């Protein structure tokens, strides 16, 4: 589902990614870990086509991120700690906006299903600015799932969420992965990554320093990678 080959990204003199290569198969649930500034978000932005690699190449579902951006965008759903939601629009209006932008067929039915699944149906007509952080993040997940993407990219999706919202999101992500959806998420919490993902990738100073199945990794193995910024 994802193939990265020697990806490098520099911002002026700073090297954010220093030759990252890995591949993730269909239906995998992988967590991307690392200290602040390790390059996790940059890598996700690059896979989503929001930024360009300085060199190297990335493919999503067999499509080159740089050369076939539309094909890639149709196949990914992105959730970040920013919700990408319009606060002056209602929950349903936000989903209808994104649904039309993606050309989703059977849109109203899909919106109704997702709002019910995210326990937001009773608040569907309320403006997003009246939502709590947890509700906004659940709606953001519904937005990302609207066009039924085979790949979910999650960039710190649990930031600022309460226990209930975290639990709901976790169940949904695990359910999605069980249904053959591929999930790549960046998380700060190694405990969460160990408990809920099947594969761990660790970035340190823009380099991929660990790539293992989650059951083979202990928390103590991860801690050294968080020590330096």
């Amino acid at each position, binding site marked *: 589902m994802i193939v990265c080959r020697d990806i490098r990204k520099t911002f002026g003199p700073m090297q954010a990614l220093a030759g990252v290569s890995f591949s993730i198969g269909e239906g995998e649930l992988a967590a991307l870990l690392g200290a602040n500034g390790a390059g996790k978000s940059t890598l996700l932005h690059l896979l989503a086509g929001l930024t360009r690699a300085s060199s190297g190449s990335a493919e999503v579902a067999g499509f080159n991120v740089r050369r076939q951006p539309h094909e890639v965008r149709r196949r990914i759903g992105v959730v970040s700690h920013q919700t*990408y939601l319009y606060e002056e629009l209602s929950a349903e209006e936000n989903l209808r906006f994104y649904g039309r*932008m993606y050309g989703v067929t059977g849109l109203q039915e899909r919106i109704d299903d997702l709002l019910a699944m995210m326990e937001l149906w009773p608040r569907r007509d309320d403006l997003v600015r009246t939502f709590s952080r947890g509700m906004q993040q659940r709606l953001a997940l519904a937005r990302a799932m609207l066009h039924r993407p085979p790949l979910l990219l999650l960039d710190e999706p649990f930031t600022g969420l309460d226990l209930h919202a975290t639990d709901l999101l976790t169940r949904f992500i695990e359910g999605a992965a069980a249904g053959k959806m591929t999930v790549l998420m960046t998380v700060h919490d190694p405990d969460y990554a160990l408990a809920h993902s099947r594969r761990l990738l660790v970035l340190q100073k823009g380099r991929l320093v660990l790539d293992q199945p989650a059951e083979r990794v202990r928390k103590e193995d991860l801690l050294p990678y968080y020590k330096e910024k």
Partner: protein
Amino acid sequence: MLALTQLYTILHKDLLQELRSKEIVTTMLVFSLTVVVIFNFVFDPGSAEMRATAPGILWVAFVFASNLGLSRSFAREQENSMMHGLLLCPVDRSLLFTAKVIGNILFITLVEIVTLPVMVIFFDLEVGRLWPLLLAILLLGTAGFATVGTIFSAISANTRSREVMLPIMLFPVTVPIILAAIKSTSYLLAGRELADIWPWLRLLIGFDVLYFFVCFLLYEYVVEE
């Protein structure tokens, strides 16, 4: 067909947002009406000076008011990183640009529709049967200014002092448009022949077309990095 739906969807969303927040049109309207009212007290009603300076005042009101609205155009998309949400959609960047330009033209035109009659009454301007041509000049001037303003708004939205950066970048580049618009309007209101107005109108159309295509091609690079 999907592209047209996407264009309509972005426009509809922008209008709905504005209808609920009223932040762009209200700000522009208050500014442009204030300018007209203040200058109305500077000159004697119906004087030759007033008529001579009216086109300049009219465009000063519209240009500065538009600057206020344009600065919000992309700043609004930065909240919650909504611009990223838009960029993640399978949409051509040129279509995003076109939708934003049309939206900005609509907002500015709405302000002009309210301000212009007030200006005509306060400044005792004789427009008569020249209304259609005056509206055409306004539309052409607005289109050119909004086109360049849209791309500079996208650039300045990523800077810390965007309210300051936008006019610094925008006004020098749009001087040909503003000059041509003021000259066309002033010749029209002075009752000059169409042959006198036409060279300025041609300049206005030329710069509109040139700026649209340049901005249309550059937009992708502006929003992606």
